[in-house]
């Protein structure tokens, strides 16, 4: 592996789905010309944030090689993952890239004991040659997440709390000592009093184990709390990407601005700004089919050009923003944009 090779390099990927119909049907672009990369020498937590239908889950399946892109490439350590064909290659890939899923109560079969999955992972990845080694590896992995084998041995999922299962799920992902963990909404179904424990775990992974994390969420507050960089997704596009402090403290894209403003803050004295009236489009469902910027229908600063063609990616400070407001040659409206 050469020194400047990226851990994960997503190059202009597009995923199109055909919906319905043997003969006709509509084409839905779930992920649209998305590019970003993670460095291999600097572990980081990279957040993909967006609302339902923004394409973040499709993108995560793509990174896990669960789906193939219609166009573009996903490179992991320089290798195009869609060229993985043989099972042995796929096993090697999975040892490096592991998922953590959203619903803790669905991550493990309710009719199987959770430790079975841990031992399966050890066995399938050839991590141990005998039962004693396997037990040690499983116990080590559980200790990394603040549990021990004694606490989960012979337990069914319903005998553990959501927070515990989610930690077991992370422990399972850690067994093969991966370089990248993909966590799809890992805390959205975990109770508030247990949530931060899981979130802190990802920080610990990055700092102590050197694992990079792609964190997929709709929750901007936890995203801000743990991540280094963030990409905001809207209807298949990454509309804004950059260091999390810049993107969330000084959002450039009007959509990011709306999103951030809509997150309720746990501070009653700040009610006023949140309570400012917003226009809710009745056409939320139709945004996918829109030509040009998908946000044009709701954007307070919309211009004619926004409805004509996809906006370009513009560098604004440390952020990359997909918006005509920042494109040089475009005539800006009188009202002007915020800084």
């Amino acid at each position, binding site marked *: 592996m050469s020194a400047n090779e990226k851990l994960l390099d997503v190059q202009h990927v597009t995923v199109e789905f055909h919906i319905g119909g043997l003969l006709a049907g509509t084409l839905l672009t779930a992920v649209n010309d998305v590019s970003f990369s993670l460095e291999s020498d600097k572990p980081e937590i990279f957040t993909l944030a967006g609302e339902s239908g923004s394409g973040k889950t499709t993108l995560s399946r793509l990174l*896990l090689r*669960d789906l193939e892109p219609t166009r573009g490439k996903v490179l992991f350590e320089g290798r195009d993952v869609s060229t993985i064909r043989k*099972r042995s290659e796929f*096993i090697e890939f*999975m040892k490096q890239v*592991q*998922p953590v*899923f*959203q*619903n803790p109560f*669905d*991550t*493990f*079969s*309710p*009719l*199987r004991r959770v430790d*079975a*999955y841990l031992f*399966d*992972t050890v066995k*399938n*990845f050839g991590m141990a040659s005998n039962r004693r080694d396997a037990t040690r590896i499983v116990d080590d992995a559980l200790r990394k997440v603040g549990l021990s084998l004694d606490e989960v041995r012979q337990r*069914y*999922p*319903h005998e553990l709390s959501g927070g515990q299962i989610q930690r077991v*799920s992370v422990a*399972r*992902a850690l067994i093969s000592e991966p370089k990248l963990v993909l966590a799809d909404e890992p805390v959205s179904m975990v109770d508030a009093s247990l949530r931060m424990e899981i979130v802190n775990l990802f920080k610990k992974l990055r700092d102590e184990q050197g694992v990079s994390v792609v964190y997929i969420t709709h929750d901007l507050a936890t995203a801000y709390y743990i991540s280094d960089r963030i990409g905001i997704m809207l209807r298949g596009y990454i509309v804004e990407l950059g260091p999390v402090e810049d993107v969330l403290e000084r959002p450039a894209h009007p959509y990011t601005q709306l999103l951030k403003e809509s997150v309720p803050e746990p501070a009653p004295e700040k009610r006023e700004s949140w309570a400012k009236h917003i226009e809710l489009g009745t056409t939320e469902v139709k945004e996918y089919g829109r030509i040009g910027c998908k946000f044009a229908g709701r954007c307070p600063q919309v211009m004619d050009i926004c409805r004509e063609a996809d906006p370009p990616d513009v560098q604004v400070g440390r952020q990359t923003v997909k918006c005509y407001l920042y494109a040089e040659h475009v005539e800006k409206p009188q009202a002007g944009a915020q800084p």
Partner: protein
Amino acid sequence: MLKVLRDLLRYDGRFRLAIILLGGVAAMVLLSYDSPYDPGKSFVVPWDLPPSREHLFGTTSRGQDLFWWLTFAVRNSLYLGIVTAIISRVISVLVGLTAGYRGGWIDRVLMAISDTFVVLPLLPILILLSFLLRDSMNLLNLAIILGLFGWSFDARLIRSQVLSLRERSFTRTAIYSGTSGFWITINEHLPFVLPIVFATTLNNILWSIGMEVTLSVLGLSDLTTPTLGTALFWANQHGALVAGVWWWITAPAVVTAILFLGLYLLFTSINEFIDPRTRLRLIGG
């Protein structure tokens, strides 16, 4: 296992009744091994005797003791039902799991075939088939034919279950634990599919015994083998009702009804018990 039986016996009236009914049927099957009469022989007892202590279900116009003859009939009908169920279960599980887990064109082709089998009017086809194969029709062949026709609906059921299981996160967890498709099917999916397999087994036994009765009454099975169907066939042949030998028709009908009722009750009661939802409720999930 014993605890399950005890719980069911104690808390489920349907299960108790099923055990009593099927216990009677099982006793008949066992008794057939110690029958004083050869079911193949006629006129071994006086004919047309009504039920009495000596001849529990009476005797037929062909001079056979109906009770002892029916012990063989029950045994053979059950044998047919079980063989049919095994054959059709194997097909339906294979088709259902394959179609569900593989998806794509394999799924579409398999489901087109199974839909056709679901909708086709089976009786006329079976009549045609049995009619042509009448000379070589024995119990085993009939079981095979019924098995080949009786899998489609259950395959569809299993497929739809697997389809939904495939979308569950734990399937993906297993995939990223490096587990192969075969073991995912066995470890993750089969435990959910087994209750369906079990429930449909009992249902399929009922169906095939019923089909045998139907075909026999039409004179299309091997009429020399005593079964519940051939019992009714011979009673009809001898105009039992017109001749006043009502027990000849009534006894097999009642025995069949008891067998069906017993299996059906067993099916509903166990079905509820092994339903994953009930099981989860029991283990406190």
